[in-house]
């Protein structure tokens, strides 16, 4: 399947792009992260430590073991600092 993967804030700066289309067979977020780590050194470094990173699937925050069934958009970002 093809997923739109988004990055925000300092995590976006580490990855180097705000958005990419990813062709993957991953069925969970954790499997998707394995795929992304394999892309290049920058991705590998950014995803080396998941501490302090959050993930949203179809715009809802989810745990890393969440299923990707029905997923179209996955986003990775640091804890929010709005308000």
């Amino acid at each position: 399947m093809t997923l739109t993967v988004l990055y925000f804030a300092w995590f976006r700066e580490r990855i180097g792009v705000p958005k990419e289309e990813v062709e993957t067979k991953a069925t969970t977020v954790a499997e998707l992260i394995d795929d992304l780590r394999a892309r290049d050194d920058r991705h590998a470094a950014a995803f080396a430590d998941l501490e302090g990173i959050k993930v949203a699937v179809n715009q809802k925050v989810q745990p890393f073991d969440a299923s990707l069934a029905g997923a179209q958009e996955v986003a990775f970002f640091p804890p929010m600092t709005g308000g």
Partner: protein
Amino acid sequence: MPVRVQSEDFDLGREVTLLRAGITDAGALATFSGLVRDDGGLQAMELEHYPGMTEAALAELEAAAVTRWSLQAALIIHRHGRLNPGDQIMMVATLAPHRHAAFEAAEFLMDALKSRAPFWKKEHFATGEARWVAARDEDEDALTRWGER
């Protein structure tokens, strides 16, 4: 529209007037505005957000507050983009029959916004340095008051 995400500034007085229009059974109006605070050398505050998710998250919070505190109306406006010291970042307003409901709902919205709305702040200093604002544990902890995690 009870929720707005925009780069433009807003007028607190005008927003409150619109929110109150036609409502005479409210006894209490609480508002809160977040401002870019210049605590030494801050030149600009950059606000990044997640278009789509932001609007959905704010709408969900607004609806939760209206239901829980039986508000007559509520409003959330949050800006994105580059802001200067003294600028308004966001506002909430709550219209309720009595003061405790109006205050509590406004505080809930602020506590929830801090860690549930996909915004990220980057501070730019006069020295040329820039720094992403770190989330504070106390902001996450503040949500436990409302039975949220």
